[in-house]
């Protein structure tokens, strides 16, 4: 009686002609990676080995941060950042309600109480909203660069400085995204990235990385991720086990060489869909801003009659997804926090009305045209 719902999800995903999942195409050249894995394993270099060092150095440079630390997952990246801030039970952490569960799971695991904030038109956390939520107990703010679109970081950092509250950027969607020419993951005390298999820079399992310009955070997180050990025999602080596998670092290093072209392809595909869909009645594309660079981990827009559109697209072989239909404050897990429907109208509206289409690097022009035509067809009067 396995309740692992992912198994049926995988089977279902395979049915689409325009898929959300692109692993089969991406790893058609796996032999290069396998050769390197063989080298690693032959050295016996399984945890935190040289390939992890190499990735950390390259990733820090790519993002423009002083340090990068490989960890077990994007979730753990947020969790370890909060632990490194010595969050105490009951401390408040302000975050967006329109995010993936992991943002909240990490806060709660770290001992924090999540304080939810509404979003703006761009689906990102509302700066004005944050200001109203700050209390004596606020110990951190975790903005999410949702879909790969940077938050308003200038205003965010002003709040951080004014109130002395550190920012932990949930940059799991936003590798290479830029705000006024500066990459996400370099604004806050840490930036948290995910290498989950369907992220822009992905591996063959779970993994993540933390960026920071703080030597102190760097040193502390390195201790925390590896049992608090200063060497094999000495434990300075009780820590955790959250390490990026060396063999997964091999995969990440391989794809790091392609990250610019992967990102460019996503941006091109998104721009193409923007042009094709902007005039369609019933659809509202997020307003694009030229001071930021979005990297479209998710390409989503508001759609009237969203659920029917999703059904129609899926019937036509397009893996349209909802990211995600229920905002965090209305999840069963959040009941103890006593939020209710209507508390965050923008987040709730986004959850009710957004829909996402695949824009990964293996989506072809014909797929894009097909998606545009099917969306148009749905909203046209002569729909069958």
């Amino acid at each position: 009686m396995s309740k692992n719902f992912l198994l049926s999800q995988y089977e279902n995903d395979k049915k689409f002609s325009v898929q959300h999942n692109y692993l089969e195409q991406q790893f058609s050249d796996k032999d290069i990676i396998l050769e390197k894995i063989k080298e690693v394993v032959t050295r016996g270099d399984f945890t935190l080995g040289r390939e992890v060092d190499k990735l950390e150095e390259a990733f820090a440079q790519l993002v423009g941060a002083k340090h990068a630390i490989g960890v077990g997952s994007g979730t753990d990246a947020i969790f370890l950042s909060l632990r490194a801030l010595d969050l105490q039970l009951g401390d408040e952490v302000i975050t967006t309600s329109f995010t993936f569960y992991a943002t909240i799971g990490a806060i709660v695991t770290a001992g924090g109480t999540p304080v939810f904030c509404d979003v703006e038109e761009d689906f990102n956390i509302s700066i004005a909203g944050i200001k109203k939520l700050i209390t004596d107990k606020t110990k951190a703010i975790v903005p999410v660069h949702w879909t790969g679109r940077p938050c308003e970081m200038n205003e965010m950092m002003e709040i951080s400085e004014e109130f002395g509250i550190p920012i932990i950027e949930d940059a799991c969607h936003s590798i290479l995204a830029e705000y006024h020419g500066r990459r996400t993951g370099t604004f806050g005390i840490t930036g948290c990235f995910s290498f989950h298999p369907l992220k822009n820079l992905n591996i063959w399992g779970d993994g993540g990385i933390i960026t920071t310009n703080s030597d102190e955070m760097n040193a502390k997180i390195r201790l925390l991720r590896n049992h608090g050990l200063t060497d094999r025999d000495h434990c300075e602080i009780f820590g955790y086990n959250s390490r990026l596998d060396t063999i997964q670092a091999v995969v990440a290093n391989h794809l790091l060489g392609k990250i610019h072209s992967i990102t460019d392809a996503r941006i091109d595909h998104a721009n193409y869909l923007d042009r094709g869909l902007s005039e369609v009645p019933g659809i509202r594309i997020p307003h694009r801003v030229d001071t930021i660079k979005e990297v479209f981990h998710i390409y989503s827009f508001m759609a009237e009659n969203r659920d029917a559109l999703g059904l129609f697209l899926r019937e036509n072989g397009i893996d349209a997804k909802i990211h995600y239909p229920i905002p965090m404050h209305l999840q069963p897990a959040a009941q103890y926090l006593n939020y209710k429907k209507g508390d965050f109208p923008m987040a709730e509206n986004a959850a009710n009305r957004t829909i996402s289409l695949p824009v990964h690097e293996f989506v072809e022009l014909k797929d894009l045209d097909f998606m545009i035509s099917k969306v148009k067809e749905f909203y046209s009067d002569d729909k069958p």
Partner: protein
Amino acid sequence: MTNLKVPFVNLASAYKNDAHAISIAIEEIGNSGQYILGSKVKTFEEEFATYIGTKYAVGVANGSDALFLIMKALGIGPGDEVITQPNSFIASAWTIVATGATPIFCEVDETLGMDPEHLSKLITPRTKAVMPVHLTGNPVKIDVIQELLAGTGIEIIEDAAQSVGAKFNGQRVGSFGIAAMFSLHPLKNLGVIGDGGVVTTNSDKMYNKLLRLRNHGLIDRDHCEIWGYNSRLDELQAAVASIRLSKLDTNTARVRKIAKKYSTELEGLVITPKSYGGSDPVFHNYIIHTEYRDALQSYLHAVGVDTKIHYPVPIHLQECAKHLGYKVGSFPICEYQSTNSVSLPIYPELSDKQVETVIAEIKNFFKTVP
């Protein structure tokens, strides 16, 4: 150390044997698109549960997380006490701290396992669980511990990180408590090529909770029942674990043969491993005790035999444990062992000739001491 005659581990040769099967598995994972918690994990979980003899097995990110998640599933948190051993790896303690509970250490005995008599004195109304460690793959006195805790409501969580396949009275460890943790770390008897762990349990309630806790608390893609964690065994590592589980008994037999040879030849010169009656250890490590430990280790190193110490500083004397109030002398047996123990190389790929070398060099060393 490439000039070692007898290295402490030889992971490369184990990988060479499995490289082809692993390559095929990676291809299958790519083609299936099942990147997280897919059919490889499911298959391994079924195989592992069958092997241990439990109703369920749940793959997680590593052994430490396995302990942590079991305790979270039991609702253990601030104000609770969990009893474990001070001679274990540090994760046995930090996982307790991570839940918010307080680790309480229990003295060990000649098996390196928890001393039931001392355990009986440590139980308080706050005790929520006892985590005996089958250290080196040597089963603890589990029947005595079970008897002691019967009817108290205190759960047994087996720390079976090093003891996959070990038995007590014919029953595999990992099936005695409410749940057990196994580590699949590369250096373990059943090791993968990165971090991995697995929980075994007979409890439906524990199983269902773990499925949620390891995957963000999700009951399906869109509904989050409890704020959870992200702690999943990678598909790739599950595939490696399955490949290696099929060879485990053969490997264990070889390791046991080496241990028997060591014990036969070295008894009298050093204190060889002692097992509890009815138990069938698997020798993740082969630990001897001698008051000449440091000299012996230097000698062996000089002649090309690599040894290790598991572990030279017990947990209660670590910097991180200062606030818990223990001191030198808190656990005399544990402390004696940590200053007198040394682990000899033991793994399936170790040749008879290498085993002979280790024995001969230890005998040579003892010719030099009075």
